[in-house]
């Protein structure tokens, strides 16, 4: 029987009541008394020298309060990068300045040059058009390989080249890997593009800055996945505001997918301008602006090779990836193609030798950073496409070649520096074969054929490293932050709890699933637990939500804090019942003395904590509130197997996804319904990447797919019904909940399944030369591939 409450129950998402009744409170819903409106003047060219800026006319227009330019930020720090990667030769990456407003040069279409602050939004818009910008256009740097050639124009004049870093991993393995390729029985090679994506959260970014002249406190309301990180980065590195004088609030946030992790210029601007003008300053991103200012995702060009023996055993993997950084280093950009990508190149397989080379490149494009999966989809896609190609070349079954190479013993130390604690890849693959009804494929194939359609089956496995991350480890790898999480559990006198978490929910359902965990531990109703997040003023310092970390890391902190609460509550209960604390048991919200019928209710104990008339005051402080910080000692490793069946229209090349099945191992599950939803969303996003989405720049660096007229977002009718299963559970061995994280799996696991299925369909139809088609597999591309 499925549980109806607590851990494991499909509790309905309590936050949906406000979201579905229009009572969510998003940043744009915040309007402060006396607020002014900011409109950014942005570069229209990809690369140019800023020779002059005339704001005279704009400043004189109706309602204009002030026009800010780069000169106003001369004494202010630039936007910091949170991760320093060390290159193959032991040198730190090239790290250019990232000014709040352009200084001397503009480096991508959308780069902010000036800001008009006016009484109304329309007045600010009018005046922004009157700002005269004198830009001398320079040749744009767009293609990554060309950017690294001799004589290429420089995105940053003060750097020696457009190369951010040339990273080798594991550098010491390089020669051994090359040697393995020399003597390999068979080598499979693949070149592919993991295309640039625009995140497209439903809610565009918003920032409202406020300054209290009476206290000298600054407040920033912003669309963020991690308000404490923004407070730290903006306060310490950009504006010089100590954290106790700076509050950052991220209220309801309508999706992030990574793009709202990063600290953006607009946040710093609104905070700065509010203080300068002594009044609140609000900026709301337009959708068009989102396309050219939200950090983009992916954008890798990869060559990958697999060495195999005659039996199909993987012997070595070698890759070379060019990773686009865009014009500046966004907050965590350098970590994505390196530590979130290279460390995953073992996949689910016991390949003994792996060498990953990544060249990160500056170009005159929007900065690229983490986007749902962040590095792990790129790793999975290239590996799982390559394995399919290898199986075909060797005449092996794609399932058999995977099984042959599966890691089956845990813990398993990969040759790329991570140790998988637990997993069972055969179990998820077996489950997949069952739920995807692979036995029925031939009949479906025949049925498609009868209708003149080509049918294909794609399967793949994936692994990801989640629960980001052990601070001591990421510190060695260049992170300039710790990646623990925090929770404060405050028990009120009448027994209700408020849990203040450093995690941030922007669609994940934390308010429901976190409450389930705490309620389950105490044995009380979920509705007695309230989850508070998103405001640095009332939550402990936390690192926020990304990397499928919230339950694994934030949830663990919550468990630790609740354990402290229970330990103290047992002492109070022991006092009330004149027993020893060691003899107290907590079950179903009641404390009993073991082996007796003596009992006090949860509410009696909490009341005693705050009305300590009968209370061991000499031994115990009154009150019931505890904080815990949790720093994981390893990543978690969710894994699974996905299957996709497509039909291809042979005349038009149009691909339709007919069936999609996902068998995931997320360890223990707190709320299976929310997990289903997370996987559904991830798969939809992955199918979007596989078939539809693509950010395209023209030769001048203008974003051609800069609106929904040309950037194809997936829609409901692009999707089949999904069959998802997470009954294969190998609990994480090192966090108290045994959970692994589920937020990114769908987006990581699904693109190769789709691509493998399309190639399979074409191969079955006799297009033997089609071994790969780059994403998105648009009708035009699939048709072109069929033409040979």
């Amino acid at each position, binding site marked *: 029987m499925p549980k109806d409450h607590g851990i494991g129950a499909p509790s309905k998402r309590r936050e949906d009541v406000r979201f579905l009744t229009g009572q969510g409170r998003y940043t744009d819903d915040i309007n402060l008394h006396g607020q002014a409106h900011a409109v950014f003047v942005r570069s229209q060219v990809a690369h140019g020298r800023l020779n002059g800026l005339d704001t005279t006319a704009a400043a004189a227009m109706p309602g204009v309060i002030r026009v800010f330019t780069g000169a106003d930020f001369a004494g202010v720090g630039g936007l910091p990068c949170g991760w320093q990667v060390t290159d193959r030769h032991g040198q730190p990456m090239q790290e250019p300045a990232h000014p709040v407003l352009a200084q001397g040069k503009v480096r991508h279409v959308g780069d902010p040059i000036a800001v008009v602050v006016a009484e109304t939004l329309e007045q600010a818009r009018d005046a922004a058009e009157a700002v005269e910008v004198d830009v001398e256009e320079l040749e744009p740097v767009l293609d990554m390989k060309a950017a690294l050639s001799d004589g290429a124009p420089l995105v940053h004049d003060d750097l020696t080249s457009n190369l951010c870093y040339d990273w080798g991993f594991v550098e010491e393995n390089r020669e051994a890997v090359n040697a393995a390729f020399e003597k390999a029985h068979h080598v499979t090679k693949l070149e592919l593009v993991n295309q640039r994506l625009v995140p497209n959260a439903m809610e565009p970014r918003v920032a409202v800055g406020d300054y209290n002249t009476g206290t000298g406190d600054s407040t920033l309301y912003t669309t963020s996945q991690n308000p404490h990180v923004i407070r730290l980065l903006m306060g310490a590195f950009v504006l010089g505001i100590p954290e106790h004088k700076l509050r950052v609030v991220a209220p309801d946030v309508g999706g992030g997918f990574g793009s709202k992790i990063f600290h953006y210029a607009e946040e710093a601007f609104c905070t700065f301008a509010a203080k300068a003008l002594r009044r609140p300053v609000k900026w709301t991103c337009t959708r068009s602006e989102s396309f050219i200012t939200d950090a983009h995702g992916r954008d890798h060009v990869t060559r990958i090779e697999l060495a195999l023996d005659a039996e199909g055993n993987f012997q070595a993997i070698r890759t070379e990836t060019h990773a686009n950084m865009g014009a500046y280093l966004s907050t965590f950009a350098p970590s994505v193609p390196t530590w979130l990508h290279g460390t995953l190149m073992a996949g689910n397989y016991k390949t003994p030798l792996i060498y990953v080379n990544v060249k990160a490149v500056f170009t005159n494009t929007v900065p690229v950073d983490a986007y749902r999966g962040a590095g792990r989809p790129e790793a999975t896609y290239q590996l799982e496409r390559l394995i399919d190609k290898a199986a075909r070349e060797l005449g092996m079954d794609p399932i058999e070649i995977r099984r042959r190479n599966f890691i089956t013993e845990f813990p398993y130390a990969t040759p790329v520096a991570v140790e998988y604690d637990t997993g069972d890849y055969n179990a998820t693959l077996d489950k997949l074969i069952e739920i995807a009804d692979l036995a029925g494929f031939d009949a479906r194939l025949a049925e498609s054929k009868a209708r003149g359609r080509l049918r294909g089956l794609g399967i793949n496995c994936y692994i990801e490293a989640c629960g980001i991350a052990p601070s001591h480890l990421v510190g060695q790898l260049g992170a300039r932050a710790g990646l623990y999480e925090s929770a404060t559990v405050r028990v009120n006198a009448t027994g209700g709890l408020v849990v203040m978490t450093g995690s941030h929910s922007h669609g994940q359902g934390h308010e429901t699933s976190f409450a389930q965990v705490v309620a389950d531990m105490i044995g009380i109703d979920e509705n007695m637990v309230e989850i508070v997040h998103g405001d640095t003023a009332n939550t402990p310092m936390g690192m926020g939500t990304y990397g499928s970390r919230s339950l694994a890391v934030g949830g663990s902190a919550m468990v630790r804090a609740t354990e402290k609460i229970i330990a103290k509550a047992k002492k109070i209960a022991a006092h009330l019942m004149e027993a020893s604390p060691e003899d107290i048991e907590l079950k179903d919200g009641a404390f009993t003395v073991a082996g007796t019928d003596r009992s006090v209710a949860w509410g009696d104990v909490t009341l005693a904590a705050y009305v300590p008339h009968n209370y061991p005051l000499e031994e115990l402080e009154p009150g019931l509130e505890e904080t815990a910080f949790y720093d994981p000692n390893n990543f978690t490793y969710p894994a699974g197997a996905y299957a996709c069946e497509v039909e291809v229209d042979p005349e038009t*090349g*149009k691909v339709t996804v007919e069936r999609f099945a996902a068998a995931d191992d997320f360890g223990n599950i707190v709320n299976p319904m929310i997990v289903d939803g997370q996987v559904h969303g991830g798969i939809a996003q992955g199918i979007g990447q596989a078939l539809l989405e693509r950010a395209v720049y023209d030769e001048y660096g203008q974003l051609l797919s800069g609106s929904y007229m040309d950037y194809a977002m997936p829609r409901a009718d692009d999707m089949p019904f999904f069959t998802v299963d997470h009954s294969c559970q190998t609990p994480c061995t090192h966090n108290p909940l045994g959970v692994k994280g589920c937020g990114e799996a769908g987006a990581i696991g699904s693109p190769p399944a789709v691509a493998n299925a399309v190639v399979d369909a074409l191969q079955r139809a006799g297009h033997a030369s089609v071994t790969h088609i780059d994403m998105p597999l648009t009708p035009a591309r699939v048709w072109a591939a069929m033409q040979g």
Partner: protein
Amino acid sequence: MYSVEFDRPATLEAALAGLKAEDAQALSGGQTLIPTLKQRLAQPSKLVSLTAIPSLQGICVADDGMLCIGATTTHATVAAEAGAHYPALARLAAQIGDPAVRNRGTIGGSLANNDPSACYPAAVLASGALIRTNARDIAADDYFEGMFATALQEGEIITEIRFPIPEAAAYMKFAQPASRFALVGVFVAKTAGGVRVAVTGASEEGVFRWGAAEEALSADFSAGAIAGLSLPADDMIDDLHGTPDYRAHLVKVMTGRAVSAAQ
């Protein structure tokens, strides 16, 4: 949006008078114009809405058998009400945009704009319809003058579109994945005078008739009749959704499918 004067007259005469103002712009369903204004890509002095003029609305069959659709009739109304008379046209209307677009967008607005990827121009051209304006009747063959260009004069308002009802017809649209406008759309109409084939979405010159296919299909109205034909890719649109070759190929595929659907 820049601030703009807004006028919503109740008669055609008042609308014509309103459009005499310098830089005045007629507004019908606004599904192209309003987004353009919101992007500040146009700055008319005045918008003259045509949607409160009763004589521009509605669907009827005239004594001469023509299906007459008022210029400000929405796609949703055409989809709901034209089916009894001209099913292929109703189905075309039902595939335009999404419900919000179909309940605001109008046939007259679509034709006046003449987006090279819009659906209605294909139906109008293939049907050999008449575009009736406040001043004259314009034959479809004379009306479309290239991408976003029409025979309409400054201040001229489409009042009605008069469709002869063909013996058989069908529209096949291959949607551009992002906008879901026609990457290629083909309308085939079989009339007593022969078969007409109009293609939208494909050409740099906007909607056009595929003469070779018309000739072949007039002789043999079956998908197989065009098997040996190929369309030159020279004037086809080249963009991130499709090459000229792909579009030329799709025109043939969609024509064949339209013919099959019209059987």
